[in-house]
Each structure stands twice: as C-alpha cells, then as structure tokens.
C-alpha cells in the first residue's frame, strides 16, 4: 500500500476515475498545460487530451455554469475552482442553480457534478488565498459537501463524489496537500458520503473537527493524554449532510464536546454541531459545549503574527482541552 500525500491521492483518484469513465471531463483555470496550480491534474492533458481537460478563461461563474450544463446533459464534469476565495462569482451557479436541479425539475433532470475547491489557510495567503467557505454550501439543501482530512479519506470521498448523481462540493485544505501523508490502497474503493469517523478513541471528551484542524486536534489529544486527559477525536469528513448519529454516540459516551474549526464561529459548522449536541445529548452532558475558532474578523490576515493569531493551533486546542476537562 503506497504512502501518498493528500494531493497525490486526489490526483491518482481523478486519473483512475477518468480512465474508468469517459464521461468525466475536467474544467477549470490552468488545469491543462499547467497541470493545475497545485498540480492536481499534472500530466492529465497529455493522457486524456484537450477535449477532456479543458482550460477556461478566468471566469468562475462560467466554469461552474458550463460544468452544470454538461452534467445535466449526461456527462460527469469535475470543475476546479483554483482557490476557494475565487468561488464567490460562481455561487449563483452552485447554490442558486446546481443545488436545485433535481428538486426544481422534480427529478426530470439531475446534475452529476463535482466541484473541487482548495480552501483554508496557514499558507500566508492573506485575505484572498486563505478563506474557509464551507458554510454557505453546507447550508444548502441539494448539495453534498465533503472535507477529507487524510489521503485515504480523500480518495474514497472524491471517488464517491464523482460517481454521485447529484452535485458534490469537495473541499481540500491547501495546507494538508503536502503536509499530510498516509497509506492509500491502489484498489478501487469508495467511502460513503455523510459519514463521520472517529479518528482517535477516548473517554473524557469529544473533539469534533475536520480538515487541517483535525490533525491539530489529534496532536493536542496526544499531548493531553500525557496529562491524563483521554480525548476522542471525531472527523466530520462530510459537512452536509452532517452525520448526527456518530456525533451523538460519541458525545453521549464522553459527556463533553469541544468543536474546533478554522472558520469564524458565528452561524457556522460548529454552530450546527453544537445545536445537534444540545438537541440530542442534553442529559448526557457533563459540561458546556465549547468551541474553538478564529476571531470574528473578515478573513485571515497576511502578517505571519496576525495569521498565527487567527489560526487555532495544537497549543490553543490543548489549552481548550485543559479548560473543558475541569469544567
């Protein structure tokens, strides 16, 4: 079983899927000769040709609208948004349009569409190359949103996204692309959409997280173990639909919950998870539901000191664990 980085897992999965299914096309900025700015499609135009690996003008609404039209007409496009920060011009085609195709035609049409969006910070990206944009998509019925944190999950979830018969947003944390390595089987496998996974078993509290923060949570949990605090770490993996059952099972067992996210907290994924816990785990809770998230400022600043102040870190998570443990 080869060890791959997360970006390698993404690349190998797309390549295998495109070899398997000729209806899959790639569409985006710099995806052909450049191989994508993160090299997710490195070598693809050579293997699959310009008909299936399509460089577009710099126009995100076009990318997503064209992909949507091709999907409704029976293809399985994978659209790449170069940076999550650039997805806003395409929001109408995704949130306004793609999400409603099956519902708004009462099933006459559907849109088997995958949108890959590199997101997240701690890459010195400043306000416009660091954004976390998951909330708007996760709020939208008709869309499925996945945010894999490991190469194994990335392969399984991306394959499921491509094979799904409805639009799936695949959020790939840029910092994890080369930071995170893991074993990835070469055989064909998929992971179910809408299922969380316990990445570390524990008894004293549950950390709920996803993306880069999942790895920081795991680091913090190891540090906490040395202090006698046994932390369970839950990886949401899919942000819509959120896996209520796994959250409820874990938090009911541990009695305490800390939700860690890189996005600002107001009306966010952590708000939803906290609401789920409040509704379903009320009588099992031994302390208040706690959240660790950046301050409510518009986006991640460029200065390294300000960036570090914005980002949750293993150290900040450990502090939050210590605080929640004695509450």
């Amino acid at each position, binding site marked *: 079983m080869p060890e791959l980085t997360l970006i390698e897992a993404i690349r190998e999965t797309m390549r295998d899927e495109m070899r398997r299914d000729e209806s899959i*096309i790639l569409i985006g900025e710099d995806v052909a000769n450049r191989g994508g700015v993160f090299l997710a499609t490195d070598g693809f135009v050579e293997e699959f040709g310009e*008909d*299936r690996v*399509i460089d*577009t*003008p710099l*126009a995100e*609404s*076009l990318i*997503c*609208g*064209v*992909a*949507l*039209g*091709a*999907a*409704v*007409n*029976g*293809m399985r*496009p994978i659209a790449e948004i170069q940076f999550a920060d650039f997805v806003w*011009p395409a929001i*109408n*085609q995704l949130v*306004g*349009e793609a999400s*409603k*195709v*099956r*519902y*708004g*035609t*009462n*099933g*006459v*049409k*559907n849109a088997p569409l995958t949108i890959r969006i590199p997101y997240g910070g701690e890459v010195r990206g400043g306000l416009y190359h660091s954004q976390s944009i998951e909330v708007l998509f996760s709020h939208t*019925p*008709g869309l*499925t949103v996945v945010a894999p944190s490991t190469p194994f999950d990335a392969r399984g979830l991306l394959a499921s996204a491509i094979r*799904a*018969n*409805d639009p799936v947003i695949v959020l790939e944390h840029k910092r994890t692309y080369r930071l995170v390595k893991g074993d990835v089987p070469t055989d064909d496998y998929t992971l179910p*959409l*809408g299922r969380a996974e316990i990445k570390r078993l524990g008894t004293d509290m549950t950390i709920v997280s996803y993306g880069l923060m999942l790895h920081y949570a795991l680091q913090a949990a190891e540090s906490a173990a040395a202090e006698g605090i046994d932390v369970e770490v839950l990886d949401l993996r899919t942000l819509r*639909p959120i*896996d*209520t*059952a796994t959250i409820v099972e874990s938090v009911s067992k541990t009695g305490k919950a800390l939700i860690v996210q890189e996005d600002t907290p107001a009306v966010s994924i952590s708000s939803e998870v906290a609401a*789920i816990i409040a*509704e379903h785990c009320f009588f099992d809770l031994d302390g208040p539901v706690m959240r660790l998230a950046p301050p409510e400022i518009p986006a991640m600043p460029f200065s390294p000191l300000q960036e570090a102040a914005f980002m949750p870190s293993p150290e900040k998570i450990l502090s939050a664990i210590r605080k929640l443990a004695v509450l």
Partner: protein
Amino acid sequence: MCSSKQKSSGDSAHLSDERLVALYRTMVLSRCLDDRVWLLNRLGKAAIAASAQGHEAAQVGCVEATDPSKDHYLIYYRQLTAMIALGSTPEEMLRGFLAKEGEPMSGARQFPYHGAHPRVDMFNFSNVIATQMPQAAGVALSDKLRGWDAVTIVSFGDGAASQGDAHESMNFAGIHKLPLIFFCENNRYAISVPLDKQMAIDSVASRAAGYGFPGVSVDGTNLQEVYAATKVAVDRARNGDGPTLIEANVERLLPHTTDDDHTRYRSAEDIEHMSKRDPVKITSSLLLGKGLLTEAEDEAIHSEAKKQVNVATDAVESEPFAGVEKILENVTESTEPTR
C-alpha cells in the same frame, strides 16, 4: 450595418404555405392561452404570469428552424409560445399556472412552465436572468465533445444581455466554436428600464463581433425573417462553424408580469407604437393577403383555439393543487439522514 451584424439574405430559407398557416395556429393558441392565464390571475386563480404576447412570431419561427427530436432548448420565463411550439399542451401549461397535481416540469414547485419537460429536452430553470447561458454552453460543449449532432438554443431577453453570464458564455462559445444559438428576444424593456439605460449601442447583435461569431438583428414580428435567420444559424452550428447571436426585435404587448403596470413607465406614444407591431395581427394580415386564409378561416382558427383553451381550463381547474406529500422528494438521489 457592422460587419458582424448581418441581415438575412435574399435567398434565405422559406416557410411553406402549409407551415405558415400551421405556425399561425400555434401563435393564436398561445395568444388565447396567454389571455386566459392573465384572466385567471385577475380572478385570483393564477398567482403569476409573464406574458409572451408580442413575442409569438419570434418564438415559433425559432423553434421551426430547429429539430425538437434532438436539439436542446434552454429557455426563459417569457416563452409560452415556444413551449407550445415544442409540444407542451395547454393542459400541461395550465397545471403550471394553477399549481396543479401532475404538473410535468417541476411538480408545481416552480413558477409556471419552469423546470424540465419529460418529453422534450427543454430546460427552463431559473429566474435569475442569464444563468441559463453558461449552462447552455456546457450542454453544447458536451454535445461537441461526444460528436452528437445536436444544436443548443438558449433564449433570453434584452435584460439578461447585461449580465456577466451573458458575456462569459458568449466568449466561451466563440473560443470553442460551440453548436449554440444565442437567441435574444429584445422587447426594449428590462421590466421598466428602457434599452438606452441598458446599453450604449443600438443592438445586442453588434456584440457578437467581440466574440468572433456572427450577430444578426431581425424583425421579431416577421415569422419568415426569424425562421430564415435561425435556419442559417442552425446550419452553421450543425456544420461545426460555431455559434450565432440572433436578436429578434419584438414588442412586449403587456406589462412585465401580472404584477406590473407599464403605464407607470411607458409613454402613450410608445404603447401606441408597439400595439401596431402585434405579430398575431401582422401574420394574420400576411396570410389573408397571400390568400392562404379567408376571414372566415381566420375566425375559425381563433374560435378553435378558444375552445381548446376552454376545455383545458375546465379540466384543469377542477384538479387538486399539487399536494404536500411529495414536498421532501427529489432533493438528492439518496435520502439525507434524518435528525
């Protein structure tokens, strides 16, 4: 006349006498149904209607030049006539206007005749104008990639021509020489905003020059002219020569929708002028003048249309509203986990 803005040539395709009369019947049926849904709105039975009155010749002329058995139509909200020309029945349309059970295009989730039709590849999805244009480019692109012999027709109003999606889709269609026809029904008003507040030029068709394909401006009240221009565009698309922008200059004879009052922003002279460009009257005069119809036959066409609409209205009015039991269906293929 700028180089990219062509007029239809003298040796253009001609509609047969039989087809002219048949298309006129469709226009009259559309007009009759259009009048009826406006009335149903005023009676409190139809929540909303956007009238196609004034656009009928443009819409039947366009559809006539295409092949509904294989072509794709991404249309917009003012296309009742095109819907009928493509084979939708008055009963189906009225189920949309009255939000009845069994409405075929969206299960009455959407505004009238929005959604997708089960029999014809017609997608009339959004009320956010111009969103259908990049989608149409995607449909045409996927046909081209698979070598399918299909043309995509995307229609839109002059209002939509101001959207970024209009520019982005025309630019992309030009680059890839897509088998796509941009069909602009220019009625000179984006709700209340007149053309000179929408663009600094006199014609949407002129813009095609900037995208590297032909733009044609035609009299949208002239059935023959619209048909001939669309036929040229369809042939171009089928031959792999790329897109065409057709601007059909029409009149919006009624306000924007049943919720609008155009006397608030149209002058009496303007309303008088546009009422003289009623395509149903113009086509009627043409057929009478050519001796293809007698006055009596024309009256019969109108009374038959009215009868057909009466029968459909009586049948559909007694049907139940689309019920709540299906409200949760068709969100995604798999049911979301319940909370």
